[in-house]
């Protein structure tokens, strides 16, 4: 065919595709909606959260909303549904041979809504702010691997000395670490920057008011009505590679634990149950199970790989005796608890790392602590308390914010098992959260039930909390050494081996009794669709961690389908 014919054909096709018959609907940021998407005014997602004081990570981690966070900035990387890191503000990155220097190359397209570009300076500013003890950041323990971070937090060096600096140009960010930390990119999931310009002009709460808020992320602040709701509107000028579908996100304030499910049933919100503040009660689960429609909307996932465990004061009697701890461990029937009480919301834990988490070893740890009341009785007698005689009455503390009806029932069941198998009297007390943590962090708690969920996907995070300088009153030198060394190793095979050995020690030395791993379920309406809500590489369909937060890719793939019209949204 002649060239002219081909070119004309191409032009014809292009012209046709631009005509209304072929053109698809685009949203305000320019992304083409899927064919089954509802009209633009329906592209609104409604969720519920506790009231927030701020929305920014670097201002306060705990005082934000539960899930609708990190929309005003572009973090260096994001997490997709397969728990893989994908580029975000950082187009690419590289690490030096010794593993101590990371260079991130920033995407030059990303701009703040006030016109200034996102540069390394904003990141440097944000990290230095977090390291500054005067700022009083409530997550100040987190970035330890960064060079000079701990010293800066303690006030020994100025914040400007931390290993986060601009590289050879404004779009290069260089992060240096104290020791090789192969998981650093994973940690950089949490790097949603603040705008240096806006902060210096308006102070830490510039994002609380639409008039002063600036964003370089997928959404901007449209409305923040105190005591009522926060409304996010799509950022028309978002410079990221992938733009979101949703035009608006509405966050209603409330107490998700008690109200979210009811609001979902009443059709007031579109998603519920995916965060730790919204665990379903057994009655809720029954309602879901019995209703065929609701059952289809219920999806379970890994959550944040949270493990529930019993802890002790291992520095004082009676729990300083390993035999006592092992007696307790063998006296608890974990399978029965999971089968009857936890049911769908958890699986039995044999170790601290949940199956699915990198380096988890359920097969290798399964047979260390088995349910064996005879052995338990024997050990307890050996330790000097035959049939529980002479053993002090115990008060098991359960942290109030984790004390859902399921957890309290499990605690009661454990207490009853200890009474039946060991003859020990156990009281169960739900303790107010701050009072609980105050005592735990001071190593003053004798016997307690608590949980921990991961912050980033690496063994150094989960196992790291068990080192003796952490919150647990347990010390094992070999464990401390293994974890410290393995965290800094670059050789993946060797570090995995060392972490495996460390976890084994943790289980054998009964630093804690690991009960179950949480498999939270989320509900979302049939008209909420998206690529990230489809099966992941394991075949699991769930609202994966971090849910709809801006540091995950899920929020970018969610859209509202035409089915919404059936629900009269």
């Amino acid at each position, binding site marked *: 065919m002649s060239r002219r014919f081909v070119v004309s054909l191409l032009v014809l096709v292009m012209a046709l595709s631009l005509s209304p018959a072929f053109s698809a609907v685009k949203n305000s940021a320019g992304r083409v909606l899927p064919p089954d998407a509802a009209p633009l005014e329906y592209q609104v997602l409604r969720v519920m959260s506790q009231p927030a004081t701020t929305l920014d990570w670097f201002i306060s981690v705990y005082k934000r909303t539960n899930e609708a966070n990190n929309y005003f900035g572009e973090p260096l990387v994001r997490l997709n549904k397969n728990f893989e890191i994908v580029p975000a503000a950082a187009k690419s990155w590289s690490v030096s041979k010794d593993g101590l220097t990371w260079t991130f190359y920033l995407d030059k397209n990303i701009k703040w809504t006030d016109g200034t570009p996102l540069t390394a300076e904003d990141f440097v500013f944000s990290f230095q702010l977090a390291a500054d003890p005067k700022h009083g950041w409530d997550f100040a323990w987190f970035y330890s691997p960064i060079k000079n971070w701990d010293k800066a937090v303690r006030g020994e060096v100025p914040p400007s000395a931390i290993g986060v600096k601009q590289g050879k140009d404004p779009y290069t960010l260089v992060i240096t670490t104290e020791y090789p930390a192969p998981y650093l990119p994973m940690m950089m999931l949490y790097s949603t920057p603040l705008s240096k310009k806006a902060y210096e002009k308006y102070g830490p709460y510039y994002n609380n008011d639409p008039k002063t808020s600036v964003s370089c992320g997928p959404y901007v602040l449209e409305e923040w009505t105190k005591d009522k709701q926060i409304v996010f509107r799509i950022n028309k000028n978002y410079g990221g590679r992938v733009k979101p579908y949703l035009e608006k996100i509405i966050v209603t304030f409330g107490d998700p634990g008690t109200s979210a499910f009811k609001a979902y049933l009443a059709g007031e919100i579109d998603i519920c149950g995916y965060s730790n503040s919204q665990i379903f009660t057994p009655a809720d689960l029954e309602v879901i199970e019995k209703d065929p429609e609701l059952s289809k909307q219920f999806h379970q996932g890994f959550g944040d790989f949270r493990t529930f465990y019993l802890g002790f004061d291992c520095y004082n009697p009676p729990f300083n005796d390993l035999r006592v701890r092992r007696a307790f461990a063998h006296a608890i029937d974990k399978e029965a608890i999971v089968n009857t009480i936890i049911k769908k919301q958890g699986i039995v834990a044999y170790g601290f790392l949940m199956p699915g988490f990198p380096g988890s070893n359920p097969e290798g740890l399964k047979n260390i602590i088995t349910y064996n009341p005879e052995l338990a009785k024997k050990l307890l007698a050996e330790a000097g308390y035959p049939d529980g005689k002479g053993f002090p009455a115990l008060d098991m503390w359960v942290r109030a914010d984790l004390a859902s009806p399921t957890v309290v029932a499990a605690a*009661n069941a454990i207490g009853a098992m200890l009474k039946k198998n060991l003859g020990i009297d156990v009281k169960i007390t739900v*303790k107010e959260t701050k009072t609980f943590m105050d005592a735990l962090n001071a190593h003053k708690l004798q016997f307690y039930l608590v949980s921990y969920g991961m912050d980033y996907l690496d063994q150094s995070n989960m196992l790291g909390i068990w080192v003796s300088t952490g919150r647990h009153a347990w010390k094992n030198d070999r464990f401390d050494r293994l974890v410290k060394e393995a965290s800094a190793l670059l050789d993946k095979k060797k570090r995995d081996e060392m972490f495996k050995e460390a976890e084994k020690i943790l289980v054998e030395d009964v630093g804690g009794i690991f009960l179950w791993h949480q498999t939270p379920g989320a509900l979302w309406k049939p008209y909420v669709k998206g690529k990230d809500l489809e099966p992941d590489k394991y075949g699991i369909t769930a609202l994966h961690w971090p849910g709809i937060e801006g540091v995950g890719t899920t929020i970018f793939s969610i859209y509202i389908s035409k089915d919404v019209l059936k629900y009269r949204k």
Partner: protein
Amino acid sequence: MRDVIRVYKKNKLAVFGFFVITIIVILAIFADVVSPYKYDEIDLISFLQPPSFKHPFGTDSIGRDLMTRIIYGARTSLIVGFSVQIIAVGIGVPLGLLAGFYGGKVDYWISRLVEVMTAFPGLLFAIFLMVWLGNGLINIIIALGVTSWVGICRVTRAKTLEIKGETFVEAVEALGASNSYILFKTILPNIIRPIIVMVGLGIPQAIFGEASLSFLGFGISDPMPSWGKMIQESLGYLQGYWYMGFFPTLSLAITVLCFNFVADGLRDALDPRMYGRRA
């Protein structure tokens, strides 16, 4: 006294109430003997079962028999109810008497103290105290007791003032009686009656208070049951397990109602207008 009983018996509701309360008290005292199971006996096979022969009130989420827990719950509620009122009377009556009788500076300062206590309205102050003291039966009693004496104190003071102004008191004074005689022999007997009525009404209030604190998460420690805690736990199971909430709510309602009947009956039976003054 015989007259009191006679008038009281006329009120059928009051008699009924008294009868029911007595049964509850007996059940509470002899809970160990009466209950078919232990209150912390779990049965991970038969959990969340509806009422049946084996478990007349059903079982809870870990298989504990609900009827047993209701009976033991009565014990908790009654202990709280009576203890709190004892504290309330122990603090409120002496203060009220002194304020009303001596007047002047004594009255002034005691009334200010009353006002300070009301700055912390019952429940809110109880929440404070519970966060400070921690959970537990004793702490609940202390928290509720400390916030309950105000009402009794005010009534005592008002009645003392009222009676003090009556002519017969002036007469006794004129006869040269000492202050303590007047206080103990003249005023006190005449205010005991409204106090008894207030106590009768205060017990259900205290039981309610314990239920409220449990609802907010400040209940007594498990596995000891209390109606308030059982109600709070049942709220997560309302849809589908009606019996978990129904029985504790009913028990609470009946108990409160019967105490109210008794208090009403006592109020009528002890009405001084029916007997004339005792000098």
